[in-house]
């Protein structure tokens, strides 16, 4: 097959991570990937580099160093204030071709996916999207990306022998966030940016962000499936009492009962709650990926054969519409007692 853009044996032994920021705040997923990148780099005794394009983002470089980076390459330019595929694509491409890292990782956000998909083709390299884990094959110094298969409890380990950089994206919530170490020292390198306004073909006419739903770190996640018959109001009430939030499996999302950003699982959110409360869902594998990090899993389903029971700590065989009102009532009366 045709070679990638790196010449043979040209790669530098380093792990690079794309650091995405929005209005002066680093995306959590970038820090999660950085935390994992630190592990990979330590195994190989390689350098961990963060790539930070934006405008006025120097303060974020220091934050990324406390999370494990040895070096931050800052590309600061007014044309990089908001993400455009042309602007960010060009500067990230140039930086990677300058540093030639062996490994290049990105968070699978909307922008991260746009960038990864486009740049992988520009580098003529492979890309493993939405990895569920990453580790190093130490002997051959190769990245091994774990990618889960469609629907089943099977993962494929994917490697790339000859093409560089080895690219992978990871969804928010998949990797744990390391504790910041304020004593950590690292180098901040200013990379000259050569960007002309005419390179940016995409114009942003309007931008609205409000009420970001983040289900990756809620204490209680109440998940509804087909069996709740679109009644997410009851689930919301329950979640509210427990100080949590509501998620859903794919069918209610596709049916329009609830927003897509609340979809839990392999193609949705991976959550790490103290408790996941599964209501009227069968427990298809792609859903389980999203709740596997829960400390406790509880489920209610009317089908005694529902696979979800295999993956629950406690379960009730019964109709959700019957049990939830009783449960809500019981929890509310407990609350009243404790407040009395």
């Amino acid at each position: 097959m045709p070679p990638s853009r790196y010449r043979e044996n040209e790669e530098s032994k380093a792990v690079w991570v794309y650091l995405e920021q929005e209005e002066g705040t680093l995306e959590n997923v970038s820090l999660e990937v950085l935390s994992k990148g630190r592990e990979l780099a330590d195994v190989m005794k390689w350098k961990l580099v963060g790539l930070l394009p934006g405008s006025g983002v120097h303060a974020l470089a220091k934050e990324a160093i406390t999370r494990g980076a040895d070096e931050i390459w800052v590309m600061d330019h007014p044309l990089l204030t908001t993400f455009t595929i042309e602007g960010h694509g060009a500067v990230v491409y140039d930086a990677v071709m300058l540093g030639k890292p062996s490994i290049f990782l990105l968070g699978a956000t909307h922008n991260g996916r746009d960038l990864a998909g486009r740049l992988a083709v520009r580098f003529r390299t492979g890309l493993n999207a939405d990895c569920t884990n990453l580790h190093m094959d130490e002997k051959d110094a190769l990245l091994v990306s774990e990618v889960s298969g469609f629907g089943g409890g099977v993962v494929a380990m994917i490697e790339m022998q000859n093409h560089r950089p080895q690219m992978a994206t990871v969804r928010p919530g998949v990797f744990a966030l390391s504790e910041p170490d304020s004593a950590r020292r690292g180098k901040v390198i200013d990379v000259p940016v050569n960007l002309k306004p005419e390179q940016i073909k995409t114009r942003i006419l309007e931008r609205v962000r409000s009420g970001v739903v983040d289900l990756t770190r809620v204490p209680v996640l109440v998940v509804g499936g087909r069996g709740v018959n679109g009644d997410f109001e009851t689930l919301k009430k329950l979640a509210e009492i427990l100080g949590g939030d509501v998620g859903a499996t794919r069918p209610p999302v596709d049916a329009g009962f609830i927003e897509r950003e609340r979809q839990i699982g392999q193609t949705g959110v991976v959550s790490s709650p103290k408790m996941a409360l599964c209501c009227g869902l069968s427990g298809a594998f792609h859903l389980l990926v999203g709740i596997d990090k829960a400390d406790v899993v509880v489920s209610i389903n009317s089908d005694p054969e529902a696979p979800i029971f295999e993956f629950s700590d406690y379960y009730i065989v019964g109709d959700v519409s019957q049990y939830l009102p009783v449960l809500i009532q019981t929890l509310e009366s407990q609350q009243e007692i404790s407040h009395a």
Partner: protein
Amino acid sequence: MPEFHMVVCVKVVPRSDEIRVDRETRLLDRRHARLELNPPDMSALEMALNTRDRYGGKLDILSMGPLSFEPLLRVGLAMGCDHIVLLSDRAFGGADTLATTYTLAKGIEKMGGADLIFCGEESADGATGQVPAGLAEWLNVSQLTLLTELSLDLDKQTATGRRSLKGGYEILETPLPCVVSVKNASQEPRFINFSRKAWAYETERVTVWNAVDLNADPESIGLTGSPTTVSELARVPVRERKRIKLEGEAMAKAEQLAVIIRDSL
């Protein structure tokens, strides 16, 4: 000026609810699963048809896969598309994202290029969502991803789309030609047009191209053109759970559950 040309890329996948998982081996059993058009592609099809209805032009379907996929693609003709191009060759098999996007790009090139290319957000069986951006890069055109709305200005030759963001949206304008990915479940697919249905299943408006037809570099397609390799398959390590069934009357079970919830938090 040549006619405005649009292409919608669709994939045929096994129906997810008919794929069984062997309880012992946890391996996938797709043998009995019927095929369907990838559900997220239905939104792409609808947005493409809607755009054609508003602005005119020609709308073709592009897909890659075995000849057996052809009858499913005819649904698109019945919905209103003009022509099907199916890229079919054993040599295309086993393609990863790089080889897939290369092959699709060669198909579009062979079609004489396109002003606007629609894709679904992701495929139900791969779910990497990386094809639209990769395709745009091969074609060296702009991209608008995760759109819920699209409008065109044919005088200015621009596309304007509403792109989903985490907790919001942005309105983007970019020059044509352009690759668009359509947010899953954002469009309500139309019913097939019954007056077109009989025609759709008989018409010869289906073109099949193989690797030689595309003048594709044999080193860049299929398994050969895919830099990534699967080194091993493994079972997913799923956390062991207690699997305690709550028994008794409904009220008693609900109370037990309330206690468990309180103790866990």
